[in-house]
């Protein structure tokens, strides 16, 4: 009884106390409470620029890409123009994508006719040099790597009405798979999901006042979220033009681009000039170029030898013998994971659904399968893998048909569910269909690496601008392969090709025997198993040059039977890195890029960062390479901006990926239970009165 009275009193007291408390606070504040119409009359002009920030595009951005493809190597020169449209001094900040396997080895800033070549520096040092030049009023450019496929270009002190050009060069190995060469050039970044809680200590003002160049705030899992979340512009404003020279070394049967319409023209024996039908292209999707030699001419092996500063570098590409048949493969367990997060909205989810349905139809009677879909949460089709019976497949297709894209991209729990699913005797193959638009890639690679066991993990990249870095590395850590699907038309061709790989025997136990005792370092250090149509690709560095005609022996295991092949070392090419326009064939660069990637992989797998960082910096500086720890910086000698003029920072926005629908948010809840409370209160009050009346009558 006493407790009840106590709580009743507390019920009534709580609001009263709060009101009293507020009243005290108000009394405290009351003295300064005066309504002013415009306290900033005198200063208001100063705010006008920032006030209009969303209506004026401070910087106009255009790019040009020059692709020079010879054999397996693409040399790309990307020129970005930053044009300041305002009448103030501006710093341009541009977050842009490059291919995930690019080896960036050159940057220069062009001011009118002058060219200032950037130096490679340790990241923090480069940043300091840039900041100093920026505050002094010197024109400066800084290129920083945020992810192997996301970079930030900063250009300081662009004069009003003028432009500064930035030239970036990189090398890239061409992708060779199933007898077809291909190359992707990404142009925009699909908005990334940043899992984790927003970090508290991050400056909230910056995020609201637009001083940060990204829409996302750092989270516990993606501490650099603000650096990889560029804004998107309204009208698909950024455009690019291409010049492409393709030397396949062979007669080419087809040259095509699944993403854009291209025309090709043969200029001599093996050289083709390729141009896009539209001279200027909107940067709203990946540019993909593919070419293939006639079937009989498919290259089986290629070896390149380069000599640089007393060292010798060899790159070897070889296509092992092929068996394209499913006869060898025992029954398997196929687990399909489908990303149904908000970034998959639009064309992507349609392609994903089609891909899954196609995959389900490929199952054989003795296979078993399961489906997992995820956005913020994940959902399993069945708690365990079930047999591929017609009924199960029918209900799985119904499950797939119902998939809609919204919510976050919490990949880790879905991947974990697939990897943890109790295994059977069967070979477990996990196919992950996603656009990879997350910011916590390394965490996911680590998860896949740790939990893989005997399973194999394959990625299928969906959409106009998928995160290819995620696709490639997740497949590497998952000992599988990756595939890209850019449009609805490609779904059947690419999925069937993937299934051919899933069903054909894998080449295992691959070993490369280099000439006796000469080699120093080889990357990748452990040759992965190869799926149907995949070439072996390794780079090695030698202390002494192997003599001409020495043999490299490659051996492996295919469908239970061993095979070996011998290739002899060719004459080296002499090159040096300091040349004005490097004529290097890039073999040493690829080797260094491979070494850096290997070290970064070790870090992902848990190696101490302090151990690998100095090694990466040393390799990157020696080979003039961009990395997670090294950046390019270029500074003009003379001062440009007078100290009296202020510098405004302006982010260059990206084009929205093609086919992506606009972002949506849920409506907030906007009603209080006040009226309900009043009515309920009145009801109990009336009941109380009735009871009193009755009590009186009874007495």
């Amino acid at each position, binding site marked *: 009884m006493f407790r009840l009275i106590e709580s009743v009193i507390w019920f009534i007291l709580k609001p009263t106390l709060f009101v009293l408390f507020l009243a005290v606070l108000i009394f405290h504040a009351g003295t300064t409470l005066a309504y002013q119409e415009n306290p900033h009359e005198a200063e208001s002009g100063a705010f006008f620029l920032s006030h209009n920030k969303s209506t004026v595009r401070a910087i106009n951005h255009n790019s040009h890409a020059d692709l020079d493809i010879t054999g397996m190597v693409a040399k790309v020169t990307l020129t970005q123009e930053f044009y300041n449209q305002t009448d103030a001094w501006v710093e341009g900040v541009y977050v842009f994508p490059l291919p995930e396997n690019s080896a960036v080895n050159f940057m220069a800033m062009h001011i009118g006719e002058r060219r200032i070549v950037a130096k490679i520096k340790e990241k923090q040092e480069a940043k300091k040099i840039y900041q100093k030049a920026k505050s002094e009023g010197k024109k400066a450019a800084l290129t920083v790597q945020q992810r192997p496929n996301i970079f930030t270009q900063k250009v300081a002190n662009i004069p009003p009405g003028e432009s500064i050009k930035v030239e970036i060069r990189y090398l890239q190995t061409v992708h060779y798979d199933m007898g077809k060469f291909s190359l992707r050039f990404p142009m925009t970044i699909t908005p990334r999901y940043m899992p984790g809680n927003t970090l508290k200590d991050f400056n909230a003002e910056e995020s609201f006042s637009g001083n940060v160049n990204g829409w996302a705030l750092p989270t516990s899992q993606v501490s650099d979220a603000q650096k990889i979340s560029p804004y998107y512009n309204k009208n698909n404003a950024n455009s690019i033009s291409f010049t492409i020279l393709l030397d396949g070394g062979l007669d080419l049967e087809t040259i095509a681009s699944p993403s854009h319409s291209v025309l090709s023209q043969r200029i001599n024996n093996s050289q083709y000039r390729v141009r896009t039908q539209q001279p200027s292209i909107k940067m709203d999707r990946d540019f993909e170029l593919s070419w293939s030699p006639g079937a009989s001419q498919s290259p089986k092996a290629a070896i390149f030898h380069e000599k640089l500063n007393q060292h010798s570098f060899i790159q070897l590409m070889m296509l092992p013998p092929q068996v394209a048949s499913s006869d060898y493969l025992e029954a398997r367990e196929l687990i399909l994971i489908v990303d149904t997060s908000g970034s998959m909205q639009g064309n992507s989810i349609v392609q994903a659904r089609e891909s899954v349905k196609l995959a389900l139809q490929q199952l054989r009677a003795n296979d078993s399968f399961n489906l997992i879909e995820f956005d913020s949460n994940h959902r399993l089709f069945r708690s365990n893998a079930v047999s591929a019976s017609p009924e199960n497949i029918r209900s799985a297709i119904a499950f797939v048909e119902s998939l809609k894209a919204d919510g976050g991209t919490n990949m880790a729990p879905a991947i974990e569910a697939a990897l943890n699913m109790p295994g059977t005797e069967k070979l477990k193959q996990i196919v992950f269909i996603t656009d990879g638009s997350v910011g916590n890639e390394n965490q996911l690679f680590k998860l896949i690496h740790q939990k893989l066991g005997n399973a194999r993990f394959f990625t299928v990249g969906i959409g106009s601008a998928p995160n290819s870095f995620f696709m490639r590395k997740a497949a590497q850590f998952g000992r599988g392969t990756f595939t890209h699907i850019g449009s609805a038309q490609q779904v059947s061709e690419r999925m069937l090709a993937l299934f051919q790989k899933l069903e054909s025997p894998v080449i295992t136990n691959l070993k490369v025997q280099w000439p006796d005792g000469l080699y120093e370092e080889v990357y990748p250090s452990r040759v992965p198993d190869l799926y149907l149509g995949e070439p072996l690709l390794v780079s090695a560095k030698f202390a002494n040059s192997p003599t001409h005609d020495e043999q490299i022996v490659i051996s492996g295991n295919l469908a239970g039977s061993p095979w070996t092949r011998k290739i002899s070392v060719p004459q080296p090419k002499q090159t040096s890195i300091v040349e004005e326009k490097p004529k290097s064939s890039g073999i040493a660069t690829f080797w260094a890029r491979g070494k850096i990637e290997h070290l970064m992989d070790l870090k992902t797998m848990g190696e101490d960062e302090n151990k690998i960082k100095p090694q990466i910096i040393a390799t990157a500086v020696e080979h003039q390479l961009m990395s997670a720890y090294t950046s390019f910086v270029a500074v003009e000698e003379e001062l440009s901006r007078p100290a009296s003029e202020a510098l405004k920072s302006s982010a260059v926005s990206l084009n929205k990926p093609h086919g992506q629908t*606009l972002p*949506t948010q849920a409506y907030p809840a906007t009603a209080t239970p006040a009226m309900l409370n009043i009515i309920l209160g009145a009801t109990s009050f009336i009941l109380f009165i009735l009871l009193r009346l009755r009590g009186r009558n009874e007495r």
Partner: protein
Amino acid sequence: MNANLRFLFCSQTLLIVCLLGLTGYFWGSAFYIYSKAQLAQVLIAKSWQDTLQNPEQFSKHKPWSWADTWPVARLRWHNNKQYKDIFILAGANGTSLAFGPGLLSGTALPGDGFSVIAGHRDTHFSFLQYLAGGDEFTIQSRNGEWAKFRVVATEIVDSSRQKLLIEENKNVIKLVTCYPFDAVTPGGSLRYVVEAAPLHQALANNLEFKHSQFMHSQLNDYQFKF
């Protein structure tokens, strides 16, 4: 008095105390909600003054020290009978909405782009029901400037069926509140949306007023849903 009667008396006293307690609780809670909504605005007015004086540090100007929000704009509106002067807070979550209308995070500040402000239909945003096409209200931004906005559309949407589309390329304000205004229970799925454009823009485009509403039958369903 026999034991039976005494028990009856006891239980009746208990019941009366219970009912009184409940009445106190419910009315107290309602009073709490309304007073929170009203009084908090007074405190926010103070922090808005500080914001105007020092707009760079706006997130430091919290209405009370443990608040997790801060004012981002001030809205004024009046018609013949009513006058509203309310401060808009950062974030449209349950906590901030109790004290004032909130700017949906991720959307632009009013006048800077696509801005969404949500408020409770029974406190701060009850006046939305009186807004009609062509009506105007003013919004003060952090730097002290006042800007006029004109209502160009009102709309009733079912939030369980559609989501709020963030159209970044539009410079408009969307004021969102629950619908119907006189519903008793909270948590319904209908929303009343008032779309307003900067005055110069509304005039330049000669925007025609629109009101759209989806099916009526669902509205009726709602009112009796407890």
